[in-house]
C-alpha cells in the first residue's frame, strides 16, 4: 500500500500494454490494412505529386504498424494503471478486477469514443495536408477535454454519493458527463474534407477497424490488468485488518 505497490502496478500495466499491443497489432494487420490499402490505391489514382518513399509499404504495414500500436497501447496502459491506482477504493466499493474494468471502460469512452464521434479515424487520402496542424490540435484538444470532463464527472459522482446514494449519484454524474461532452462536440469546429468519389465502404471499413482496435485494446487491458492487479493486491485485501475493531467472529475454533 505504498510506493512499491504503485510501481508494481505500473510495471504490470505496461506489460499488459505490450501484451494487448501484440493482439491489437494482429487485428490491425488482418482487418485494418485492407481498407488502408484500398485508400492508397485511390490516392495513387488521384495524386498529382508524390514525395520520395522513405519507408517501404511492407515495412509500414508490419514493423512500422507494430511500433505505432505498441507505443500507443503501452503508453495508455501505463496511464490507465496509474488511473487505476487513484481509482481503487475511491470510485466505490469495487475490488481490483471491477475497478480495472471500469478504468478500461472510462479509457475507451474518453480517450477514443468521444473524440471519434467528432473527429473519426480517416484512411489515407481523405484529409487535406494543409489543415494537418489544425486537425492534430483539435484531436488532442478533444481527447484532453473528454478526459477532463470524465474525471470531473467521477469527482462529481463522489461528492453526490453521500446525499443521493450511489445509484442516483452515478446517474447524475453520467448525465452531467453526456451533457458536457455534447456541448464540446457541438461547439468544436467540424472537419469535412472527404474528396469527391472516395469509396464510402472503404471509409466505413476503416473506421470499423479503428474502433475494433480500441475495443480490443481497452477490453483486454481491463481483463488482463484486473487479473494481474488482483494478484498484487489480493493478499492485502483479504488479510488487512481494518483498524483494531474486534472481528465479529472469533478466530476459527481448532478442531
Amino acid at each position, binding site marked *: 500500500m505504498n510506493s512499491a505497490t504503485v510501481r508494481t502496478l505500473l510495471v504490470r500495466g505496461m506489460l499488459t500494454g505490450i501484451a494487448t499491443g501484440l493482439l491489437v497489432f494482429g487485428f490491425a494487420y488482418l482487418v485494418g490494412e485492407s481498407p488502408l490499402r484500398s485508400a492508397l490505391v485511390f490516392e495513387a489514382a488521384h495524386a498529382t505529386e508524390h514525395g520520395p518513399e522513405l519507408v517501404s509499404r511492407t515495412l509500414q504495414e508490419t514493423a512500422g504498424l507494430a511500433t505505432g500500436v505498441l507505443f500507443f497501447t503501452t503508453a495508455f496502459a501505463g496511464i490507465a494503471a*496509474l488511473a487505476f491506482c487513484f481509482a481503487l477504493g475511491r470510485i466505490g466499493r469495487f475490488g481490483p478486477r471491477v475497478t480495472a474494468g471500469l478504468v478500461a471502460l472510462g479509457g475507451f469512452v474518453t480517450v477514443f469514443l468521444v473524440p471519434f464521434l467528432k473527429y473519426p479515424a480517416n484512411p489515407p487520402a481523405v484529409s487535406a495536408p494543409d489543415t494537418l496542424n489544425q486537425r492534430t490540435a483539435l484531436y488532442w484538444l478533444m481527447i484532453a477535454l473528454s478526459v477532463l470532463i470524465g474525471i470531473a464527472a467521477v469527482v462529481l459522482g463522489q461528492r453526490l454519493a453521500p446525499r443521493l446514494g450511489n445509484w442516483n449519484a452515478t446517474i447524475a454524474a453520467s448525465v452531467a458527463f453526456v451533457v458536457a461532452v455534447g456541448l464540446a462536440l457541438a461547439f468544436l469546429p467540424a472537419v469535412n474534407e472527404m474528396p469527391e468519389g472516395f469509396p464510402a465502404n472503404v471509409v466505413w471499413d476503416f473506421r470499423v477497424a479503428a474502433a475494433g482496435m*480500441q475495443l480490443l485494446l481497452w477490453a483486454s487491458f481491463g481483463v488482463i490488468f484486473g487479473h494481474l492487479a488482483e494478484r498484487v493486491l489480493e493478499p492485502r485485501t483479504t488479510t488487512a485488518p481494518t483498524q483494531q475493531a474486534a472481528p465479529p467472529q472469533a478466530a476459527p475454533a481448532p478442531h
Partner: protein
Amino acid sequence: MAQSAAPPAVAPDAPLTLPVRAILPWAAFFGILMLILLYFVGAEGGTAAVFSGEGVHEWVHDGRHLLGFPCH
C-alpha cells in the same frame, strides 16, 4: 438487494486505497514519459518535428491512421 443504507461516515471495513502521495511521483514521471511516447505516434513529423524530416512519421504512419490520429 436492500443496500443497508450505508452512512457516509467511514465504514469500518473501508475499501483498500493507495495513498495519493505514493502515486503522484510515479504519475508525474511516467505520465510525461507516456505522453512523449504518444507524441511520436500521434503528432511527430506533421505538426512539430523534433527530428528533422518525415522519418518517424513515415515509420508509424499506418498506426497513426488506424489509431485515429489525424494524418493525410
